[in-house]
Structure formats: C-alpha cells, structure tokens
C-alpha cells in the first residue's frame, strides 16, 4: 500500500514518512517490535493466569474463621444461591473473556508471525473484540476493592486474596499485549495476501 494510517490521529501519510504530518508522532510500521512486545506481555499474562485461578481472589473472615474463594468457586457459589445473572456476568467477565482473549491474541500473533491471513475482516473483528471486551475482566477486581472497603467489621471482614493481585496483573498484561499489537500489521499482511 502506498499510504500509512497514523495510529494516533488517523491521518493518511506517505508510506516512506517516519513521522505523522499532523500529530508529529512516529508512524513507522515496526512488525518485529510489535510482535515481540505483544508476545512478551502475553507470556506474562499467561504466567499470572495460573495463580489468578488457583489462589483465592477474596477471603471472608467470620469470627477469626477465614474462608477463601477462588473465581470459579465464587461463580459456583453464586449459581448455587440462585443469583444466575451475576454468576453469568462474573463467569463471562472473569473466566471466559480472559481465556478467550489470550487465545485470540496467540492466534493473531501466530497469523502475523507466519504471515497467514484468512480474512482481514475476520482478523480485525477479533482484534477490536478483544480491545473492547478486555478491560471488562476487571469487574471482579473492582468488586473486591469495594467489598474490602465496605466490609471490615470486627466480627466479619472481607480480605483480598493473592489471586486478586495475580488476576489484576493478568488483565493488565493482556491489555498491554493488545495495545502493543499494531493493528495496521494485520492490514499489511492481509493486503500482501490479497495482492
């Protein structure tokens, strides 16, 4: 393609340009840099995904008796109590979205690495989907923040678990991985295939 879209302001520049003529930021297409950075963030996210699901995300202390609850445990508990809509929200936001996001990011990185593009529309749809849904995994972290702040009595208190930090770090790294991945590379690879 003869032109390059600025990822910051959307202006169209000549392909040879290093800096955007409108916002003045760097617009060069760094395929390797974007791929490596995104992969490194994704790997960090995968590492934190394990303790995030194994360790309790929050603990309930009732008369010095402490009970921990993992994300999946919380979903099962909510389902058992009949809070189906909340159980579904937590399951989708905290279990399904992070897992699918990691899978989709691996798929997109593989697509770029092997230069295999099935369809630009499909790849871009996946990219925008993870960008849009990614931050919503933080719901559970914010629930913990709120419950810890509100419920801290002598007889009963909510204490954050190790899983909460791991989960927040996992979401943070998946966000960084999707932001580090330059969507223009997908356009570039698919355009090469089309031509």
């Amino acid at each position, binding site marked *: 393609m003869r*032109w390059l879209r600025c990822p*910051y302001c*959307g202006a*169209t520049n000549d392909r040879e340009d290093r800096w955007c003529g409108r916002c003045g930021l760097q617009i060069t297409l760094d395929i390797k840099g974007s791929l490596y950075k995104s992969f490194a963030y994704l790997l960090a996210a995968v590492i934190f995904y394990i303790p995030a699901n194994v360790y309790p995300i929050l603990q309930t202390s009732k008369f010095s008796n402490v009970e921990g609850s993992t994300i999946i445990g919380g979903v099962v508990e*909510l389902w058992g109590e009949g809070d189906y809509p909340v159980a579904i929200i937590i399951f989708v936001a905290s279990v399904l979205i992070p897992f699918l996001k990691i899978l989709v990011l691996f798929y997109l990185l593989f697509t770029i690495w092997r230069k295999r593009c099935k369809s630009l529309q499909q790849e*871009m749809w996946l990219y925008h989907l993870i960008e849009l849904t990614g931050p919503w995994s933080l719901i559970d972290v914010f629930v913990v*923040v*709120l419950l810890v702040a*509100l419920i801290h009595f002598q007889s009963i208190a909510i204490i954050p678990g190790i899983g909460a930090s791991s989960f*927040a770090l996992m979401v943070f790294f998946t966000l960084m991985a999707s932001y580090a991945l330059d969507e223009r590379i997908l356009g570039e690879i698919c355009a090469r295939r089309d031509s």
Partner: protein
Amino acid sequence: MLRKDIILCPRCFTPHKKLPLAPKEEARCVRCQALLYRYRSGLEYLLLTLSTLSLLCLLIANVSPLLRINFGELSARTLLLEAILSLFDKGFVFISFFSLLVLEVFPWLLMGTLSLFSILVLLRRGKVIAKGSLILVEIFRRWSMLDIFFIAILVAMIKVYQYAQIHFGVAFWALGIFVLLEIYVVKSIRIEELWELWERRYEMA
C-alpha cells in the same frame, strides 16, 4: 507527506478519496461500511459542555459518600477514593495503585484535557497545547475505567443484598451520570473528529 485528500478505512485500510460533506452527512467505507468521517457542526461547544459536566459529576462523586451498608447494628460507608486506597493498608499495592490510576487519575485527566482542548479550540489559541492535549486524550481514554467500576458496584451489591441493607449515596448517582457522559464522549466522538476540528479551527485562524 500528509495526504489530506485521502482517508484510509480504520477497519480494513481501504483508501478513499476525501470529499466535502454537508452538515449531518457521513462517509462510510465501500468495503466494510465502517464510519470514515462525518460533518458535525458545533462539536467544540458540545465537547466543552459534556466535559465540564463530567468534571462536575466526578467532583460530586469524589466528595460525597458512594455507598452505605447496614449489617444489623453494624454500619459502614465509603467514599470513592477511600475504597480505592483501602487496599494500600492491606498490602495490595498493585491493585490499589492500578485502581487509583484507572478510576481517579485518568478519568480526571481525560475530562480535564478535553475541557482544555475545547476551550483552546474555541478561542483559537494555543495550537501546540491543543495538539498535545489531543495526543494525551488518546492515551487517557483507553485507561479510564469508571464505567467498569460502576457495573462492579452493582455486582458487589447483588452479592451482599441478602445480608445487608444498602443505601446508594449521591456519589453513586453522580458516577452513573459521569459514566453515561463519558460513554457518549469517548464512543460517539471519535478522536479523528477532534483532530479534524483542530485542523479546521487553526487553519481558519
């Protein structure tokens, strides 16, 4: 070289020739139907109104109580900032610091920067500062997450409603209005539109 006569589709990168539009008209990609650009008059006034209103809501959301819950005789209430900082004391520094950034720092900076941009654009002064503020807006809008926090409040309250009485404070409603305004500002007004506004206003000056 900057090509003002050509626009690339943000979704499929198909090049299009840029044509002048009449008010309320919009141009869409021939390939994927994504919105390319549109003509919206009075955008600077709309932006100033919405961002100022958002700042006001954010101020109310920070100074008044967010929630109060009663567990029989026991009662507790929290402010937004108190809730965020409560995890610092428990040793959960990352969550607390991250929450402070995405729930306090970035929302304030986003709306503050947008207000500054709209004032500068209206006055046709400070071209470089207005440009810098737009670059910052692109960063802040990604990391402002009060909309997610608002849903998290509802989820948390559903979790405890069986055991406690819940009273929503003024801050909760202010936060709700802020979230609606932020969604409109961030999702409906695209960053490209703001850059075009910047170009238009300073070229005319």
